[in-house]
């Protein structure tokens, strides 16, 4: 026990010395989500690449996901030590602006190319992915070819989805169905309900159930199969292409009004849409890059579903209607 305490104290001392020594140089504090900064995520590589160019230190502060990021900013308000926030998605933009902590970046983003007609003066996209139904090829031979087929298909073939109240993919499916079915969305949900094995609070629980073989379909991203093909050399999991089109999730970053060194922060935003950053994204964050990468993407990415049509609702529209649509969803999904 005493050894343990001593080593704790030593660690604490070492830590404070380290922070002190580094306090001399410029630091850029970037708030992001956890899987971005994980050892296999884009964070470490991006940090290294940027630090080579800037004589500065990049400090990532990570929370569990994009929504938690927004909550964190709300709580911290003007006191936030963040210079940049990286990891909100388009559905959260309207609310993020309403907090009044962000300022327009004023950068030329002509090189950024994202499906759907996204444009915004404050938030810059750094990657995107289409939502998609990923299925187990061992369990399903004829995957649904459209959202309609998914909704009306065999109820004994189950799918696991996420709760739109707690998770961004869950919200994505809600908006996807809304985009395709319009006001008839509640009826579609009532039909789809028969195929829903369960609704999980987040993506991780759902995908865990799926890879454990408990359920043959899961709501995820069209890019998910790339992970299994590249990292596990397995073709077992594939995404189903839907003829109506796919809803998109665009991940964005923004500059805070309170950023201490705005030039440095803007340098990072420019770097974010340069090949040095974009090259890292596909095989670490398993999302699509928003600008040209210096090398072609790995072969697996060519096999992915290329959505013919992209759905994207304006974030104001989402913010305005989200609660009403969630209530409709609750009502439809709670019917017996």
């Amino acid at each position, binding site marked *: 026990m005493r050894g343990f305490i001593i080593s704790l104290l030593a660690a604490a001392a070492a830590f404070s010395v380290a922070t002190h020594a580094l306090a001399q140089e410029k630091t850029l504090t970037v708030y992001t989500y956890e899987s971005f900064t994980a050892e296999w995520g884009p964070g470490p590589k991006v940090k290294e690449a940027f630090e080579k160019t800037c004589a500065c230190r990049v400090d990532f502060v990570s929370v569990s996901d994009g929504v*938690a990021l927004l909550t964190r900013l709300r709580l911290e308000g003007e006191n936030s030590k963040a210079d940049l926030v990286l990891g909100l998605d388009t559905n959260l933009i309207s609310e993020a602006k309403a907090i009044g902590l962000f300022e327009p970046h004023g950068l030329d983003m002509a090189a950024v190319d994202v499906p759907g007609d996204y444009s915004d003066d404050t938030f810059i996209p750094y990657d995107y992915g289409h939502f998609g139904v990923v299925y187990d090829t061992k369990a399903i031979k004829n995957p649904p070819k459209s959202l309609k087929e998914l909704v009306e298909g065999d109820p004994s073939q189950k799918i696991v989805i996420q709760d739109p*109240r*707690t998770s961004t993919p869950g919200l994505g499916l809600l908006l996807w169905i809304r985009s395709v079915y319009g006001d008839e969305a509640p009826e579609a949900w009532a039909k789809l309900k028969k195929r829903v094995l369960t*609704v999980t609070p987040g993506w*991780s629980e759902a995908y865990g159930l799926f890879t454990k073989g408990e359920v043959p379909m899961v709501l995820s991203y069209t890019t998910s199969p790339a992970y299994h093909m590249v990292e596990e050399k397995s073709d077992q999991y594939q995404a189903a292409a839907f003829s109506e089109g796919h809803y998109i999730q665009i991940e964005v970053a923004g500059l805070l009004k309170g950023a201490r060194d705005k030039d440095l922060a803007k340098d990072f935003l420019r770097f974010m849409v340069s090949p040095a950053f974009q090259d890292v994204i596909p095989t670490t964050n398993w999302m699509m890059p928003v600008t040209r990468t210096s090398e072609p993407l790995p072969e697996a990415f060519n096999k992915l579903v290329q959505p013919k049509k992209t759905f994207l609702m304006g974030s104001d529209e989402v913010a305005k209607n989200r609660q009403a649509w969630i209530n409709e969803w609750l009502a439809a999904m709670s019917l017996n």
Partner: protein
Amino acid sequence: MLTAAQRKWSLGWGFAAFGGIAFFVGTAIAALLLWDSGATGGQFFTPYTWQILRFTLWQATLSTILSILFGLPVALALARRPKFPGRIWIVRLMALPMGLPVLIGALGLIGIWGRQGIVNATLLTLGVEQPVSIYGLSGILIAHVFFNMPLAARLLLAALERLPAEYWLLSSSLGMKPLSVFRFVEGPATLRVLPGVAGLIFMLCATSFTLVLVLGGGPAATTLEVAIYQSLRFDFDPPRAIALSFLQIGITAIILAVISTLPKPDDDENLHGRASRRFDGRTAGARSWDTVIILFATAFLVLPLASIVASGIQADLWRLFKSPAFHQAALTSFAIAVAAGLLSVVSSVAIVVAQEAIGDMKRPGAGARAFAATLGGMGSLVLLVPPVVLGTGWFLTLRSLGDVNRFAPVLIVIINALMALPFVMRVLSPAMATHRRRTARLSASLGLSGISKLTRIDLPPLAKPLLTALSFAMALSLGDLGAVALFGSSELTTLPWLVYSRLSSYRTNDADGLALLLGLFCLLLTMLGTAGRERHQQDE
């Protein structure tokens, strides 16, 4: 029996614990209430709120009843069979579900009861067409029984083991039949702790979150806790979160109050503790019944754990074990668990000591009695304050002091300690009451007090329950994700957080492996909790 000075001290401890908890919870709630959310002032309670309230109470009631109906025979059987092969390991395993992150437990259960699980596979080979579905109310119940039956069994077992040896001697020399033994000995002993145990399980099930969502099958199965979480997430509407929290606390408090009015047998008086030996249950029928019960409970408990082990060993365990991320997370988790466990035990002791001091008064005034009741109620109800409310409230309070992350470890420790408080009190309160009845007069007549009373009279017999309580609290803290997730950042990573971070980036295999390591870690803690037992058994 206490001197005036002792009473003053005891009450002082109680006030300190009360003040500390009230301050911590009150500050968080006040901060949230003062928050100007600029919300549209939407309705706090919608018809859907009442629907989930009904479901919350319904599933919690059923889960509690089932957990106890299953846990009671298990406790009786284990108490009757002190020499059952592997008994100590069964008791240790019973503390394990508590220390597992809920999602891991759920995945383990799905491995057994799920669509591809062995139960359904067996049923299919037996020709049963409609397999058991774990999704829906049945799944929630199975999961809650998995997590809470062992808790019930352990607490009831502790109550039975506290019975003085004289009881068993007497019942056997009177030639009492099993039914009479239950009626006169086991029944009263378990009834005494049953309201507390039932209340605790009810609260745990009422505030269940991930289990209910994952196994509930859809939003019809939702608890208020989910609604509270939601109102602090996308919506960020603190007043609504507070209103829902008060609804949750209020309704549950009423139910707990009703449970606590159940008739309780009188306490046993002034007996000498002696290692207990059982003379009953020697018939073949009794033996086989107990064996079946114990084996069934063990299988129910072990199979999902085995499924966690089975997926865990497919991971590259050695690589995970060697990774610096694991070392750091294990160290952090351990430090938090130790601190939270100690804090929780110390606060519980303070509360129990103060309650006893009030109970010891000749004519406690209404104020004193109310204080004792408040202490007891607070020790339970604190479990109902959602960690997300505490965390968010304190975040708001501390944000003007600079980087909140610096305070995060302290906050996590306190939140974990509070969560563990009801468990710890359930272990310590009856043990300390029994101990006081046995020794109070003796200590008073010997004029023992202070340190010498503590080391000579109090610590030796209380070491076992204290260790059990500590291991409960540490296991809980070890498996907790909620409090950490609020502040979680790269600087503060615990083991459950590490498991989740693997899961959230496709690395299911690593997550399985880490979950196994976490489970082993937790098993070590439960060995600490039963450390007193082995010695006890060797004495015999």
